[in-house]
């Protein structure tokens, strides 16, 4: 009997090695796998390359991961926010590398990674600073930039409910990057609010099939 449900967040994230690339779900705080990130800090991970839409808010979650010195580089679309002072300080001190990627290109590169494409031509960012030095091509009169897939060693995502095979559903706009990040990593760890029995998730409603999920961690009351 296959059971992907892990006992604790720490047990799950302890598989993450120093220097690995980690996709972290969430858009701001919605969908951010805060408890998995906390465990990653406890695990004392180092030299991570993080791929996430933002670079953390306030002093929790992703921001705390940065503050604790776990992160070498961050690939994101929108690092600077009104409460991203931890990132801002590290960046200005030259203590963290930053790669800014347009949000849709970030999504498309993750999807390319998850679906085995070698590269894609996207119209976004053509002629801008973010396409500098990149290969371009005009196809049917439209200008495109060549972008390469993002693949990761791990993905940490937050879902709403999951079962022991790793099938997941999400809650509202907390879905955001979860489903696509799950596809683009060798090992996906999902935190869920509820673990349900096999068959409780309607096969028509499952958003992330278990094939993309390796560990499920229930967060909250024991």
């Amino acid at each position: 009997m296959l059971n992907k449900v892990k006992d604790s967040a720490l047990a799950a994230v302890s598989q993450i090695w120093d220097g690995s690339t980690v996709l972290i779900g969430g858009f701001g705080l919605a969908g951010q796998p805060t408890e998995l990130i906390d465990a990653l800090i406890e695990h004392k991970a180092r030299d991570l390359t993080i791929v996430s839409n933002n670079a953390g808010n306030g002093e929790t979650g992703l921001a705390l991961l940065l503050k604790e010195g776990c992160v070498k580089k961050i690939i994101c679309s929108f690092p600077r926010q009104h409460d991203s002072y931890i990132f801002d300080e590290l960046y200005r001190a030259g203590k963290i590398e930053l790669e800014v990627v347009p949000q849709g290109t970030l999504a498309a590169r993750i999807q390319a990674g998850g679906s085995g494409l070698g590269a894609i031509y996207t119209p976004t960012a053509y002629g801008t600073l973010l396409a500098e030095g990149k290969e371009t091509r005009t196809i049917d009169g439209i200008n495109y930039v060549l972008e390469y897939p993002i693949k990761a060693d791990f993905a940490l995502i937050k879902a709403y409910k999951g079962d022991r095979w790793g099938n997941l559903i999400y809650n509202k706009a907390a879905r955001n990057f979860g489903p696509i990040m799950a596809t683009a990593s060798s090992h996906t760890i999902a935190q869920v609010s509820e673990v349900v029995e096999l068959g409780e998730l309607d096969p028509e409603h499952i958003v992330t099939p278990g094939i993309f999920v390796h560990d499920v961690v229930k967060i909250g009351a024991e």
Partner: protein
Amino acid sequence: MNTNYKPWTVDDIAQKVAASIDEGMYVNLGIGQPTKIADYLPDDKDVFLHSENGLLGMGPAPDKGQEDGDLINAGKQYVTLIKGGCYFHHGDSFAMIRGGHIDLCVLGAFEVAENGDIANWFLGRPQDIPAVGGAMDLAVGAKQVYVMMDHVSKKGEPKIVEKLSLPITGKQCVNRVYTDLAVIEITDAGLVVREMVEGLSFDELQAKTGARLIQKSSV
């Protein structure tokens, strides 16, 4: 300086943009001023607000106490979902944008050039940290791009210019600019003034604009 005119307020402008939106349109409202437009969409028209973090059919802010951290918009404000709306992931959301499925996007801007180039993501000063979000995708992907902004900067400098001085967001993508002084169409012939604040003369408007304007009557 002539004081015979009163600039439009953000609400005035939002109302004008809202009036130009037809039933059945799928619309993305950028962060900042454009968010206001939602307040002026008539209830009897079905217009669909898209938020790039995975919402179609975005509704107004929730009542106090009803906020849900999992239901926010691209500006990370609490919102609601209207009946008939739905959720999807970021891949699908940007497929909608990049794939040309959004009929209209209204963006804020630092500068707009007469050829429709837009700069709205990065000031490029040494102290600035680059952050783009969905701006470049929206600029390039939406069928129509409107800009909503002040006509001149806080220092009084024109924001509508011949050539951008700031880092570009998207090339030749703006179709129309709504400012506190005028509504300007970007056409192949140039910048055509559709409407102006009452009491403002064309020459005064031209003086506040960094590129040549064309009077509507002359086209």
